[in-house]
């Protein structure tokens, strides 16, 4: 029931929007749909009693071994909650953007949501793959139609890059199915026991897709351009939810199918991730455009997420999953603020801003509260996640933990430097500018509240992922 609702509510609303094209009420309708999905997700969370809940288990095409199995475990539910929670904010961001054809924009967003729910609900690897690829298509059109400069070439690069990963994943999955003759259900994945030398190469066939989606160094070259060119809502979808697909896929598929491959490549992946995190942090410091800065900061955060996951111990994996949630909330706030400033100043170049605090003290305060989460100050959500990952990496090797700390310090530097350039300094604005409006408050205050509440009391989320993580750890070599 829950799975059906989650797949159908956004899908049907999106189709309605496509067909009816109600320009006036498009955003309202989309918002209602996303709130309904959120309610369903919260009901699922409230009634969740542990274990894996399977909601449908049917053969699709029995002759070819295609199966339709949907359900969720703790980690899946966390991702569903994340998707459900994020989309009202993404759609809400559209009120400030005023893009052309709002019905089409919202339809594409809702299609994305439906497919993302599909990704996190799928309990069969081929079904997972199908939703994984499908979620790319609405985003492709979002970027192509409403993107900024050079969008045509950047969009196609993004599409091809992601599909490269997707097809490699398909190849890896087909190889697993062909070799073992299993039906591809997640419940059967951990019992595969492929030979060790197969696992070593198969790891990259499977992981490449997620490494590109996340993205980690050196598969990241599509990311900054795409994030910058995409319309605000597209960037939100990409950074807040879609990159979590990479994390989820790694956790759910790569770790389960090729545990020995993970063990073999662990140091390589951690090294790449941390190199990427530091490297992106340094580049972020040099950015003058705020959207580009957020793109590189996201890249830096993701590197840390991936390193935490591959630390392969309780702290590291739990922290990584927790931080995935925190990062989504954080990046929504940052991007929204960027949009709000751009709306007032007319550009996202930080050189054009400066001294805004005098004109809009409330917005500056909200900005600072969001930043507090970005730099992982204690009592915020990011602190919990980053501390856990830090502890996980420390257990693996002290130097890794030191490198992770460098990225956190870098994060604090570039974030506050950005704040300084945008908000502080002499008041150079002749015109009257309006301070944070009711809409800005409605948007940012809930995000900040989530950050603080889950920063002080992270147990609900940690409980959710604990059992699946323990299960996974017991299967790792």
């Amino acid at each position, binding site marked *: 029931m829950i799975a059906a609702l989650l797949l159908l509510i956004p899908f049907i609303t999106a189709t309605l929007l496509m067909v009816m094209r109600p320009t006036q009420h498009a955003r309202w309708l989309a918002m209602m749909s996303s709130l309904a999905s959120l309610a369903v997700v919260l009901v699922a969370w409230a009634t969740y009693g542990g274990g894996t809940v399977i909601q449908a288990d049917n053969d699709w*095409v029995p*002759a*070819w071994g*295609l199966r339709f199995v949907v359900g969720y475990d703790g980690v899946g539910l966390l991702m569903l909650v994340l998707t459900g929670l994020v989309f009202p904010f993404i759609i809400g961001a559209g009120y400030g953007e005023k893009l052309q054809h709002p019905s089409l924009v919202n339809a594409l967003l809702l299609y994305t949501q439906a497919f993302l729910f599909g990704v996190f609900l799928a309990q069969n690897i*081929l079904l997972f*793959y*199908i*939703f994984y*690829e*499908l979620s790319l*298509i609405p985003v*492709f*059109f979002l970027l*192509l*139609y409403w993107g900024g400069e050079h969008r*045509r070439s950047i*969009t*196609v690069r993004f*599409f*091809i890059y992601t*599909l*490269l990963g997707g*097809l*490699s994943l*398909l*190849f890896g999955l*087909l*190889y697993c*199915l*062909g*070799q073992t003759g299993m039906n591809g259900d997640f419940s059967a994945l951990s019992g595969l026991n492929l030979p060790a030398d197969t696992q070593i190469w198969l790891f990259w066939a499977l992981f490449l897709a997620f490494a590109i989606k996340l993205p980690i160094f050196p598969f990241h070259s599509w990311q900054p351009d795409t994030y910058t060119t995409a319309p605000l809502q597209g960037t939100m979808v990409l950074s807040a939810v879609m990159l979590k697909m990479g994390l989820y896929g790694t956790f759910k598929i790569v770790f389960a199918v090729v545990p020995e491959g993970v063990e073999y490549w662990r140091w390589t992946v951690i090294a790449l991730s941390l190199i990427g995190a530091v490297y992106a942090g340094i580049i972020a410091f040099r950015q003058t455009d705020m959207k580009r800065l957020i793109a590189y900061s996201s890249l830096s955060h993701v590197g840390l997420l991936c390193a935490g996951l591959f630390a392969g111990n309780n702290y590291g994996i739990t922290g990584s999953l927790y931080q995935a949630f925190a990062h989504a909330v954080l990046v929504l706030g940052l991007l929204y603020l960027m949009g709000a400033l751009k709306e007032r100043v007319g550009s996202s170049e930080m050189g054009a801003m400066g001294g805004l605090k005098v004109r809009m003290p409330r917005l500056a305060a909200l900005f600072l509260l969001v930043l507090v989460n970005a730099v992982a100050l204690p009592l915020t959500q990011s602190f919990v996640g980053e501390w856990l990952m830090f502890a996980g990496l420390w257990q693996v090797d002290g130097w890794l933990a030191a490198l992770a700390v460098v990225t956190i310090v870098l994060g604090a530097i570039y974030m506050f430097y950005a704040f300084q350039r945008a908000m502080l300094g002499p008041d150079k604005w002749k015109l009257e500018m309006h301070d944070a409006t009711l809409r800005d408050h409605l948007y940012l205050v809930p995000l900040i509240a989530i950050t603080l509440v889950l920063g002080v009391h992270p147990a609900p989320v940690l409980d959710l992922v604990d059992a699946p993580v323990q299960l996974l750890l017991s299967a790792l070599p």
Partner: protein
Amino acid sequence: MSALILISVLGVVLLYLGFGNNRRLLAPVSIAGLLGALALFTTGWHIENALVLKDLVRFDGFAMAFNRSLILVTVLLFLFGIDYYARMKENVAEQYALMLFSLVGALLLTSFNNLLLLFLAIEILSIPLYVLAGGKRDSFRSGEAAFKYFLQGAFASGFLLLGITLIYGASASFDLPTVQAFAATAQGNVLFLLGLFFTLAGLAFKVAAVPFHFWSPDVYEGAPTLVTAFMSTVVKMASFAAFYRFIEHMQLPGQVHTMLVVMTVFTLFLGNIVALRQSQFKRLMAYSSIAHTGFLLLAFLGTSDRTSGVLHYYLTTYALATVGLFVVLTLAKRAANGDENIRIFRGLFRSAPWLAIATMLLLLSLAGIPLTAGFIAKYRVFALGISTGFVAVTAFAVVMALVGVYYYVTVIREAFTPTADAPQLVVAPLNWLVISFCGVAVVLLGLLPGLIGG
């Protein structure tokens, strides 16, 4: 058998109708006849191993499935033909009749049980096509296409005939099961080996596999669009069915198998890579057709009882997507005064949104994106390749599928790029019907792949 006779007679009837200037009747009569044939194939004829004509023809489940798809695709093409030939002054009846005769060849190709009949069927299929390719008599390029196709086709027929002769020399039989049984004992028989090489080369020409593909871009570009669509769907499907028929139960000698692997790799590579550089839509479709030949050849590398089902599914869905796209091309080409560059699609979404969405679905299906039939088709081919042990070739095919996505997406990007002077398309209701049918079919078959050939 009666269906074959029906279609042949139908062709003759159409020629007579052509004398009487009953142009309005042509398409309805031929479509009605085809539907009759389809009914004959669907109802009383589904008999396993029904050997007819002194064992020359075998109408088994495989042939029946292909024949139904072939007739269905031809019906779609004829529906499109009503509008397409409406502007043609004379000789319309001949066009329909020739296509029907060619279809008879195609139907025989799927069901031959004797190597002589294979040759006959290929000739019956090809000779009307040589004429059809030159259908625009005042067009230089159409004439060029016909001439090229004829010369190279004749060359390939020679190859095929030589191959059949050599096989006969080795095995002393034209009967397909006998030849296939002989193959198991023919290790190191040079005569037989050469025979296989030449026969497969002749068939490879028909499916446009590298290095026998040179005709296809020029002929596709020069021939009238409807004929191009016919060639890339009906002819391709039938030729692949024949290809499968021929090597179905045959234990291929190692050298021939290596040739097949090399051919697959080169076809995949060349089709996809060259397609990247095309700006003319018809040439793009020609190279995409070569690329799809590569994916289909992948299914032939190993032996599995699933191969026939995979082929049928792949070819049917490929044909549906291709027919729809050629109809869209014709409409866009008219609006752009005969230009065939992919730029003519620019702004399609603005001027005809539903047409653009249907085009997108068809292109996504060719590219193999999930929830379209093309994805399931590619999935099955890859799964087959891996399960029969050709992991490296499959990995290469996967990479090439990615390259393929690029050029299809380029066309989608054109269709969805806003422009000030969007093409003003005039869509006749019947064309609408054909495009929607193809668009719905590729999605429906993607969601419920069990609908055909389960």
